[in-house]
């Protein structure tokens, strides 16, 4: 797939003057492309006169950055303490089993990406699952099962 780099150029121009802004720059790249493409990293390195490894050092350090394209819907299963005690691990395992992917991966049809998050700060509604930006509290395996089916039927699958 060919990557359109004109947006990367625009973002670099926006940030290159200010100090300490490599992280916001990369955050904006990700917001534009959905992940941080290799081609963008190379261009940033060239334009800012730094080594690509410095950029990869940051990208791989922070959990927020992705180096590969994401699925259409991102499922985040909270693995905070309250969610763990209330059965969040079982829900993550179940989803991983059902979708046939491990955490951090995307389904072959590109519909779902599965992630674990440390804590979403909704401990009173544990266990919590977030699909895109919709929060679902007090989840059970049956409830998430129905949710996934609902998303699949909306996709016509």
């Amino acid at each position, binding site marked *: 797939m060919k990557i359109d780099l004109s947006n990367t150029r625009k973002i670099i121009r926006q940030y290159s003057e200010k100090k300490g802004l490599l992280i916001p720059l990369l955050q904006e790249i990700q917001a534009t492309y959905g992940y941080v493409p290799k081609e963008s990293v190379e261009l940033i390195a060239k334009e800012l006169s730094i080594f690509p490894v410095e950029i990869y050092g940051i990208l791989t350090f922070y959990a927020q950055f992705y180096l590969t394209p994401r699925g259409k819907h991102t499922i985040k299963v909270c693995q905070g*303490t309250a969610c763990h005690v*209330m059965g969040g691990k079982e829900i993550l395992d179940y989803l991983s089993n059902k979708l046939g992917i491990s955490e951090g991966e995307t389904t072959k049809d590109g519909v779902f990406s599965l992630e674990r998050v440390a804590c979403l700060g909704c401990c009173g*509604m544990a266990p919590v699952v977030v699909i895109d930006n919709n929060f679902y509290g007090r989840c059970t395996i049956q409830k998430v099962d129905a949710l996934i089916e609902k998303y699949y039927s909306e996709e016509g699958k």
Partner: protein
Amino acid sequence: MKFKILICMGTSGISAGAEEVAKAFETELKRKNLMDKCKIVRVGDRGLFRDPLVDIITPELGRVTYEYTKPEDVPQIVEEHLLQGKPVERLRAGKDYEQFFSGQMRIVLSNCGEIDPEDIDDYIAHGGYDALKKVLFSAPEKVIDEIEKSGLRGRGGAGFPTGLKWRFCKEAKGDVKYVVCNADEGDPGAFMDRSILEGDPHSVLEGMIIAGYAIGATKGFIYCRAEYPLAVKRLNIAISQAREKGLLGDNILNGSFSFDITIVQGAGAFVCGEETALLASIEGRRGTPRPRPPFPAQKGLWGKPTLINNVETFANIRHIIVKGAEWFSSIGTEKSKGTKVFALAGKVKNTGLVEVPMGTTIRELIYGPGGGMKKKRVKLKGVQIGGPSGGCLPESLLDIPIDYESINQTGAIMGSGGMIVMDEKTCMVDIAKFFLNFTVAESCGKCLPCRIGLKRMLEVLEEITEGRGKEEHISFLQEMGNTVKATALCGLGNTAPNPVLTTLKYFPDEYEAHIRDKICPSHVCTELVKFEVVEEKCVKCGLCYKACPTGAIEWKKKEYPRINKEKCIKCKACIGACDYGAIQ
């Protein structure tokens, strides 16, 4: 006089459908021609998870609270409550709501769920920025004296005296100084900072501006977690409104003091809550900690003296300035002053944010505002305090008072204030493994004890929970835990062994059961569960049958269920559903 309708809309309220409820009110009020008589105020979360919460304030009836409100309930509320003056009894918040709030002392949270966080005028109407106005007429030295006298200590976990930190920073040499607010609330199980930022963002800004004035800084940063989009949005609104009013920016309130604040969004790294790592992250680098000294108060952001305080600490400042150090120090214990906000969750009846005076016991907190255990016949086994840096305390220690020193003595730490109540279905070895999994994943890898020591401890815990435990594992965990604690570079590593060391200390029999008898008494560790029905304990209720997602449980009324092992995927939904421990 206008009627007021308050609707709680923090992350929790919104996810429970508060926006739909607000829209339903708008439609209904328009339909009944009540729009100019009523004011809908979208407030932050109040701390109790019974959303959507709606308060209606009328001159005749005063304040009435509704819980679990649904859009379809709104026409009835408008018709009966607003027009006929009769509250809808079936929807009113009941005893649990009253109990939750009656045992609290809300200072930091006083505005949360009361004011519109996106409206600076509402904050000002509730006494907002009074503290700043008072401070600008006194010497910076006096401000620091006041904070020192109040006895306020850092609410981020370690409990360092706030006034002393401010003094160090003021006395540090340098023409440029910075104020940083640590809003990288990463502890799993803690969400008070998020609620404050979402519900009362100006209180944090005001605290930061006062700190800037006191130490002589002109620039502030709020380092906020990326997972809190609503908090970032409301902070941005608050900052621009404060600038418009001349409370932030050049020549604040037409005086000579200038101060401005920028928001920096984190990118998902727990270690960035550690102050030196946080600074590295603001500078645009990998967030790895460095040795201290020099402390950030001497050499911080870009080498300049930097004051770092946590959200809750800043939110306390305005109250101390307005009501005085003496008032503040009259609350709490000898060494721990004021209140502390706890995030109460787990197997307790009322979950949410609870603010109590220091010195309250853990038992008072759980059985007061918390309302006791969620299910009456289930026994409390332990309480986890302080997240991955804290520890698990047994039932017998519930009567210790909440203050920095008493909690440290148990081997846990106050931490940021997460409190998770656990019952007999929680396996303590599994909890220790859970936290180590987290700290191993979040370790930055810079220093060896944390990078390798924790990993080795995790491997041993995995062996124990998978039925391959050996006798010598217990002494290994103790030795390695103490070594990592003593030698790791930063706070993350220094405290990461606490969950293991405290469970070893208070729940040794659970480790022994896993290692010697190869059983998990709580039926949590999958490899040690047989997935069989124990007929002596079973009451034939069929809850397990209903919970099973794969149809692996065969059950008919008045008969014992049977688990078909070929269909079973070992998800443990049945164990979660059974109240009698009848599946082993």
